């Protein structure tokens, strides 16, 4: 019941926030496209507005739920996932996962501007080739409950993989960073992750155009690239130079 009320409040402030985000973002893009001193000032002002729009509100929990048919055996898909160190290969927001014990692993996600969010997870139950459940341990930057299920797809089309992950962010700045990482639509991000997993298992690689050759880009295109929700700019430390050179770095 309490959650439902919170939902109404969320929706109202969401609209306000989205307004600030869109207006601010548009002003920033317009400013960038001017390529003048005034334009830069405008871009900065727009950027601040967008930031303040994005800043408000931390959701109480973020639920990601998606599924995908992968043209490979249940055994193969299960094994690939069971080695958690494989996850950052297709989950764009993860920088690193290290297996630290039989059932334990340490996860590090990339936050805005190179911040890092870390948590330890433990497998709480598993059935080989069918299901893995994990949960974060005390002392983590966030709380997470995850489950992945594997079952045969109909028509001999491989494996149906289904993932549900519930993230509860902490309060304060860190919570804001966590909210940023998992995005406005966690299920959308999960779906893209599963697509990359599918490509990796089926085709042996994830399709990409990052780093390809191209003609001269405009400032607007560069800005759009940086804001692309599916391609978080990976900044080592807080190296702002990387963000600024994204124009050349990203296709």
């Amino acid at each position, binding site marked *: 019941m309490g959650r439902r009320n919170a939902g109404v409040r969320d929706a109202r402030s969401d609209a306000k926030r989205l307004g600030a985000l869109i207006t601010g973002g548009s002003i920033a893009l317009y400013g960038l496209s001017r390529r003048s001193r005034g334009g830069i000032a405008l871009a900065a002002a727009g950027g601040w507005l967008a930031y303040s729009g994005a800043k408000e509100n931390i959701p109480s929990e973020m639920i990601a739920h998606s599924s995908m*048919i992968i*043209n490979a055996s249940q055994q193969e898909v299960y094994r690939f996932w069971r080695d958690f160190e494989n996850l950052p290969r297709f989950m764009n927001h993860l920088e690193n996962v290290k297996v630290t014990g039989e059932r334990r692993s340490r996860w590090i996600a990339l936050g805005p501007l190179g911040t890092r969010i870390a948590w330890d997870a433990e497998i709480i139950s598993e059935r080989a080739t069918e299901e893995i459940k994990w949960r974060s341990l005390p002392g983590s930057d966030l709380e997470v409950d995850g489950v992945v299920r594997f079952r045969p797809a109909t028509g001999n*089309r*491989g494996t149906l993989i289904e993932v549900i992950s519930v993230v509860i962010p902490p309060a304060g700045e860190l919570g804001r960073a966590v909210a940023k990482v998992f995005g406005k639509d966690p299920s*959308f991000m999960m*779906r*893209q992750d599963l*697509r990359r997993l*599918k*490509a990796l298992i*089926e*085709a*042996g*690689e*994830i*399709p*990409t*155009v*990052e*780093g*390809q*050759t*191209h*003609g*001269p*880009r*405009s400032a*607007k*295109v560069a800005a*759009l690239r940086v804001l692309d929700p*599916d391609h978080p700019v990976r900044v080592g430390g807080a190296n702002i130079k990387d963000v600024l050179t994204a124009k050349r770095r990203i*296709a």
Partner: protein
Amino acid sequence: MKAVCWMGVEKMSVENVPDPQILNPRDAIVRITSTAICGSDLHLYNGFVPTMEQGDILGHEFMGEVVEVGPSVNGDKLKVGDRVVVPFTIACGRCFFCEQQLWSCCDNSNPNYWIAEQMMGYSPSGLFGYTHMLGGYSGGQAQFARVPFADIGPLKIPDGVPDDKVVFLSDIFPTGYMAAENCNIRPGDTIAIWGCGPVGQFAIRSCFMLGAERVIAIDHVPERLQMAQEGGAEAINFDEADDVVALLKELTGNIGPDACIDAVGMEADGHGLPYLYDRAKQMMRISMDRPLVLRQAIMACRKGGTISVPGVYGGFLDKIPFGQYMNKGITMKTGQTHMMRYMKPLLDRVQRGEIDPSFVISHRVPIDKAPEMYKTFRDKQDHCTKVVLDPWANVAQA
């Protein structure tokens, strides 16, 4: 290297850009020997397809020599030194769709799947030199190109067959052929084809290959209609016909063509109020498409007939006579071309001398002239039907 870049609506420019590099293990780099401008590039030139970005390298009809292969490319299929034609669709070869030979529906070749998903619900395969919604891959109107999943798409070409005869295996010949195959032609059938551009021309010849008795071609560019007649078709100039649908009915004893091919797509030209209505909506960006041809095809097609649509459409179509479509029991088949189904069999036909695809070429120019050729081709000036670019020609010679 030199590359033809889209710098904005009706703004093409040849730029010096870095050479492409291998980015993924199944990539190859091809040194391009021949490359063409396609009618579908004109939709981009005219700015009617969203998600283009300044600096995009266009071109999806190219061939050349493999100069580098990634570590995971199957060496039995492709190696350095091979002469290849590269299909315009990119396919992984391993997903459900590739296994069904639905190559242009490949699930794993569009890195921007999510954009297409947001706009269309699902994504088709990635394409070379097209929109970012379809991958944003740098294209082949350049001196070199990066080719992903290189052991699946590129078709090896034996020495001795000149580029001009095989370069169109990259798109328009298979596209015209699939358009004809999608008509479910039975011996004796009559097929009407709207659009006598290069795809229409190949569709005309493919219809006859597949057993059609009559092909009726509709366009208003005199040299294209003449080329259609040379291919064995009867020609209708829609500038001179009052009512194309009525004329088609008359020409077929009031039965209608057994199948209709829309080789025009989103930028149809025409006359009268419906045309002006489409045009105005497109100018106001209310609609991406002018579906004049599709409406005529539905109205003209015989009961229980087939409509095949190789023409490119962008989004939601307006004023489609769906009641007629339903009540007449028409079947429609569409899609980007499933290239790898057709390339080898069509190469065999070329080698057997059944067809010489070079008949569509009207212009051969150095790549530096590409920007002006886009305009010439778009405006159908100078009897332009098909432009082939030489990426290495010295401009001074031309």
